[in-house]
């Protein structure tokens, strides 16, 4: 079996970065730091996309999650800036432990599922299937545009309507006045 060691290293690099920054983002004291870590996560995930051949998705990911969304967050942080960031660190309610164990069980059972399916179905080729064909960039763009404008045209139109609704909705939300009675 031939192993593309470069690809392996790239994958583990991006994956490690993703998980590291994700944890960092959740466990950092300052909200700004956690936002920065989140941006790192999004960049790393874009790299993961790249290893899968989804260059276009990676670019969009960076554009939206790497740049646009953080700007929104930064604005929100500026509006709601609180000196006492440490007070809003992480909860020590029972739910911390409950969710920790719950997610642990969930995680383990899913891993178990994966192992079971590996051991049961290893003779089926799709389990160990590689990316059979290296995706041609031209093909990819053609496929995506076909998807947008031919196959899923209805969904696309609906989505544009959704965006319109969102624009209207946000402006309506912005127009809501503060209640005077307390």
């Amino acid at each position, binding site marked *: *079996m031939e*192993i593309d060691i470069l690809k392996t290293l790239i994958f583990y690099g991006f994956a490690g970065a993703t998980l590291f920054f994700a944890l960092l983002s959740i466990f950092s004291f300052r909200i700004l730091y956690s936002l920065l870590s989140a941006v790192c996560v999004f960049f790393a995930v874009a790299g*993961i996309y790249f290893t899968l051949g*989804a260059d276009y998705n990676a670019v969009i*990911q960076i554009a939206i999650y790497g740049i646009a969304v953080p700007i*929104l967050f930064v604005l929100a942080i500026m509006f709601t800036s609180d000196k006492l960031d440490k007070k809003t660190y992480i909860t020590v309610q029972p739910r911390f432990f409950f969710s920790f164990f719950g997610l642990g069980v969930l995680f383990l059972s899913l891993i178990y599922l994966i192992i079971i399916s590996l051991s049961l179905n290893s003779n089926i080729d799709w389990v160990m299937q590689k990316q059979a064909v290296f995706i041609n960039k031209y093909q990819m763009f053609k496929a995506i545009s076909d998807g947008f404008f031919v*196959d899923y045209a209805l969904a696309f139109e609906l989505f544009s309507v959704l965006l319109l609704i969102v624009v209207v909705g946000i402006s309506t*939300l912005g127009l809501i006045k503060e209640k005077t009675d307390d």
Partner: protein
Amino acid sequence: MIELLFDIGLYHYLILALILFSIGFFGAIVAKNMLKVLISVEFMLTAVNINFIAFAGFFDNIKLSGFVFSLFYLAVGAVEIAIALAIFYLMFRTKQSVNTEDYNCGKE
């Protein structure tokens, strides 16, 4: 068996997505800061996106429907964040706090 670790296949991506999803979920539960909760939700969305693209990359080389839908999903995520932030800001105006403990409006 050891080559399973190095030979990057579909399962590596799936497990990565699973871990990221769990972290996101955990963050959404334990974070005290409202904005951090939103960030955690974004992690969960991203994890789902990874699954989309991984499945498409491994099985659907011709039509790449997973790629298309991940794009939809990205846009939906962005929109969701925009609205969530708008609502959060409105709530913040009345509560003057980012602490989730203050937002127990589910209780009547």
